[in-house]
């Protein structure tokens, strides 16, 4: 686990330009949506767009550096090495997640700093709840990434197309830039319920309430409980999926096929 996390860390801190690269879309989309809020006379909600940009950094990292990673590792011949090593694949995935989180922090911090410097969003925070919500959201989100990573083992190059399909709708239903669940949601209750299975949805809702509306632990306790549940559920799902698909891949002889 530590070894895989360190590879991630070296990959970005050996090439600091990656920080700039990673923050491209989050900062520009955050900027665009902040300006959109300002242009329609809703400047008091500009913080939603800045927070959305921060969390999109992590969501992109989960999709492109977690979910598709094993697929790329297969193409580069790394996955065979994982399989033949005595290390557990789950430990490798957890290491990848930790490395991914630490790697994304600088980009997220820069997005935050630029957003705050340019737009001065009004914050009325309950910082304890914000910090706990943030870490639980990341735990659940990266556990989802581990599950997707396992599922993507059965894909070939379709994985990239699937990522392109998933990225925007998940951002929309999760309400990265606007409330997608609760009283202010535009979606019907059934859609809100389905969207709540995505950790980002619960996390964004709780982060917005604790960061901008001062709700403390009691206000977001249900969200925290759900996030903790989702973390555990996705972790177990990833382990089960990984085992099943690894067995299938070994039986079919496709597990280390580089390009399909």
């Amino acid at each position, binding site marked *: 686990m530590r070894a895989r996390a360190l590879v991630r860390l070296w990959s970005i801190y050996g090439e600091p330009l990656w920080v700039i690269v*990673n923050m491209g879309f989050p900062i520009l*989309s955050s900027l665009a949506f902040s300006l959109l809020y300002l242009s329609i006379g*809703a400047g008091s909600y500009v913080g939603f767009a800045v927070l959305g940009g921060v969390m999109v950094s992590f969501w*992109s990292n989960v999709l492109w550096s977690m979910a598709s990673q094993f697929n790329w590792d297969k193409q580069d011949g790394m996955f065979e090495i994982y399989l033949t090593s005595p290390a557990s694949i789950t430990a490798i995935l957890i290491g990848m997640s930790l490395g991914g989180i630490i790697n994304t922090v600088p980009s997220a911090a820069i997005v935050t700093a630029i957003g705050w410097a340019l737009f001065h969003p009004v914050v009325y925070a309950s910082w304890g709840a914000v910090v706990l919500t943030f870490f639980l959201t990341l735990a659940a989100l990266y556990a989802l990434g581990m599950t997707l990573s396992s599922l993507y083992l059965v894909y070939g190059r379709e994985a990239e197309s699937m990522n392109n399909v998933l990225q925007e709708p998940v951002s929309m239903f999760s309400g990265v830039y606007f409330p997608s669940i609760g009283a202010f949601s535009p979606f*019907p209750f059934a859609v809100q319920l389905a969207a709540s299975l995505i950790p980002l949805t619960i996390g964004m809702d709780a982060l917005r309430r604790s960061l901008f509306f001062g709700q403390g632990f009691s206000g977001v306790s249900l969200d925290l409980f759900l996030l903790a549940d989702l973390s555990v559920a996705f972790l177990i799902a990833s382990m089960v999926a990984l085992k099943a698909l690894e067995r299938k891949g070994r039986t079919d002889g496709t597990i280390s096929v580089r390009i399909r």
Partner: protein
Amino acid sequence: MLSFRSLFAAAWMGVQHDLAWTAPVASLLLNVVAPFASVMTVSIIYWFGASHGTSAFDPTHLAYILVGAALYAHIAAYAWVPTTAIAEGKNLAVFPHIYITSRSTAVYLAGRALSSFVISTVTSLLALCLAFFAIGSVLHASVPLLVTPLSLAMLGVALLVNIPGALGLGYLLGAYSLYASKFEWSLPGYVAGLLMVFSGALFPPTILPWPLSAGAAALPFTFFISAARDALIYGLPGEYAVSLAYCAVGGVIMLAVFLQVYLKAEKRARRDGVLDRRLA
């Protein structure tokens, strides 16, 4: 350099690449998902902001944002195709087979971009139609779009006139990709993000600080989106013609300049031997 046969072969390869990874109809429909979600996201932001902000909800403003969001996604979808054609081509050893032919790789990139233009036109317009109905049922708002044979023909002409500018941008990014081997994958995000901010897709460029506002207002993409709005929302043929003329002139200039940049980069890349290197 120009060969319609090569151009057609490259375009067909692009269609195969973009649609044949699964059942073509399924992949076309899957390609609608991202622009639809993107258009819905900005529409909901407007709905939420206008409902809880200081200005009143204005359906015409919603139409303004809807059309802009669908079209910036369209431009972004095909402007970065040359980049991915080179990056993925190097990675999967396709690009070396292109560059050893007697044609310049510029023809191949033009073919790939044109096929993507066709696919992206279909998917963006489908996304726009779906969003139009979804906004009606989810946000309970009607979007005042002018859908007549004339307005659709005007939109079609605007889409075609925008090709040179987008292709020029594609060549510029492609020139970078010839030499890059790590960061080119992030370019689509940058292209989409920059277009969102600077093409007047979501808000008038005039709200940007000077000189950014002046630069954004002079982009051919800004004129293209403005012309499309004149056709689909305001029904202003005069304004449309002016915007289209600026778009055409700016696009041709961009194409001429950035094609030269690409050809020079290609020549140099051949000399430096980086065209077939996965890691340049």
